[in-house]
């Protein structure tokens, strides 16, 4: 069998197929459908310091080859996560990555502090797409200084690998990536959702109560792929590709442009076994071409 293992900033994964935060619950929800231990890693729903109610419904609407969501980061909070979700996750033999988010840089730091000693938490994924409440609601990820601030603070309190998840809603994502790398990030993941909107023309109201939401799914894949390609050409740390990956062929596009691993998001909703189908498809592609190590694929785009 081909060797699929990859190293993400010190975190060893047996294969590059991870689940994207917010699309895989706390793992358990998918246990009836797949053997969770077959995954490269599980990234759980974004965690805030306190539990969050999230946005009022409707929260989702389908769009052409995509969906908008405005969940509003509803989550149980870091304490309940540690007490109620980690005991199950610890029973698995798969790295669990906690996705974290804060309203200000201090909050990121405090969540990182809380999670670092928790057995079973293998890495942190820092979601810098959230609005920075202390800086007027502009996302941390839209601005290199605030991104650096968050990453430095998180790094200062943890020895876990720190993956920084970038927002695509920026002019120059590679510039943010470089800033985040310089602040000590061990790896990057991109992209988070792209802000979008949809309108009910009969009622003349937005389909989402929150007015705007995050676009995910196949529609955004070309944008995600372009951004990953731009970023891998500018940073040395590993990059995880996310955005519209539905099958092995999409996964291969990301690996070929230079992603070391991928995250599967919206595809989980369409088929809860998507991750495993993708893994099998990846193996089939490699076997057919006698590729014995996934590194023979990563970053091999000819252009």
């Amino acid at each position, binding site marked *: 069998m081909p060797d699929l293992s990859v190293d993400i900033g010190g975190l060893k994964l047996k294969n590059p197929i991870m689940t994207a935060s917010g*699309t895989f619950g706390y793992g358990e929800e998918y246990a009836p459908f797949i053997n969770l231990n077959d995954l490269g890693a599980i990234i759980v729903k974004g965690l805030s310091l306190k539990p969050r109610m*999230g946005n009022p*419904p409707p929260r989702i609407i389908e769009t052409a080859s995509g969906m908008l*969501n405005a*969940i509003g980061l*509803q989550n149980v909070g870091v304490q309940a996560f540690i007490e109620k979700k980690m005991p199950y996750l610890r029973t698995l033999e798969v790295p669990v990555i906690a996705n974290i988010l804060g309203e200000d840089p201090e909050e990121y730091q405090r969540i990182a502090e809380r999670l670092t000693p928790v057995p079973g938490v293998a890495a942190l994924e820092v979601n810098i797409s959230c609005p920075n409440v202390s800086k007027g609601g502009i996302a941390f990820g839209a601005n290199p200084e605030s991104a650096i601030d968050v990453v430095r603070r998180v790094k200062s309190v943890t020895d876990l690998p720190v993956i920084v998840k970038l927002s695509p809603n920026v002019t120059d994502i590679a510039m943010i990536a470089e800033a985040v790398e310089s602040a000590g990030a061990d790896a990057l993941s991109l992209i988070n959702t792209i802000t979008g909107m949809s309108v009910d023309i009969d009622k003349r109201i937005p389909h989402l109560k929150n007015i705007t939401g995050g676009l995910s799914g196949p529609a955004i894949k070309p944008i995600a792929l372009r951004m990953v390609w731009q970023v891998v050409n500018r940073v040395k740390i590993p990059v995880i590709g996310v955005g519209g990956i539905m099958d092995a062929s999409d996964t291969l596009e990301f690996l070929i442009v230079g992603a070391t691993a991928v995250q599967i998001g919206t595809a989980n*909703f*369409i088929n809860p076994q998507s991750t495993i189908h993708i893994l099998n498809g990846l193996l089939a592609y490699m076997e057919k071409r006698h590729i014995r190590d996934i590194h023979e694929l990563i970053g091999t785009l000819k252009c």
Partner: protein
Amino acid sequence: MEKKLNLGSGCVIENVNVAKDHFVMSLLLTSICKDALPGQFVMIRKQGVKDPLLSRPLSLYGVYQTDAGTVLEFLYRVVGKGTWALSRLTGGDQVDILGPLGKPFEILPDRNHVILLAGGIGVAPLSYFAEYLAKDLDRPEERGEETASARKVSFYLGATTAAALVGIEKIERFCTEVRTSTDDGSAGFAGTVTELLQQDLAGLDHRNLCLYSCGPAAMIRSLSQLIESLDIPCQVSMEERMACGIGACLGCSIKVRDASLGWSYCQVCADGPVFDIKNLLWE
């Protein structure tokens, strides 16, 4: 915590246009949904198609065991691209099914007069429930007995106009009593179905009653006001847009009472779709 796999495919047997914009589709399944209960739903999509992207939730309208496998029936109304795509399916087409999902209606053995209150397409899950009750599927020991069930089942069905009162034949087969209403008075009581129920409630013994309802939010809301002060147990099946159907995306939240926080969001797919009406909160 491992639940059993409820993912499979079904083959369309037929898909009949039963009224303007309304269809009844039947599917043959061989691996799943054998034990699907009234109030539960499935996530359904045409196999191999990428548009629409997401599966759509549909309540069970009928579940039958045959030699060939389990037959599922759905009654649905075409409101947008997902339901439109379903309406285009014909015999032999394959669909992907995730289900049965969600909490079913809970049967209260002590309450012998069951009232089912449906508005519009809310008729689907309640029809199946009526059939289930009429066949005593919850009480195997009474099944097949010649004596009429001790249970009385009254079905209240409301719609905007006579033509939108779909599925009434099935209901008549399985209910002791059928009461209809239309907003425009073109059939049955002229007014909302909740108003009709309100009239009738006056003459009934509330201690023997239990209520189940499914329909537009406005109807559920007025029902909740109607029975607020009454001591009648009432379960309602709620709707919200869904992506995953299994509690993972948090897309289908609705407001419920919460002892410690006052209120919180709950997932229609995993914590519902059936809720005790007393737990719901309205803006």
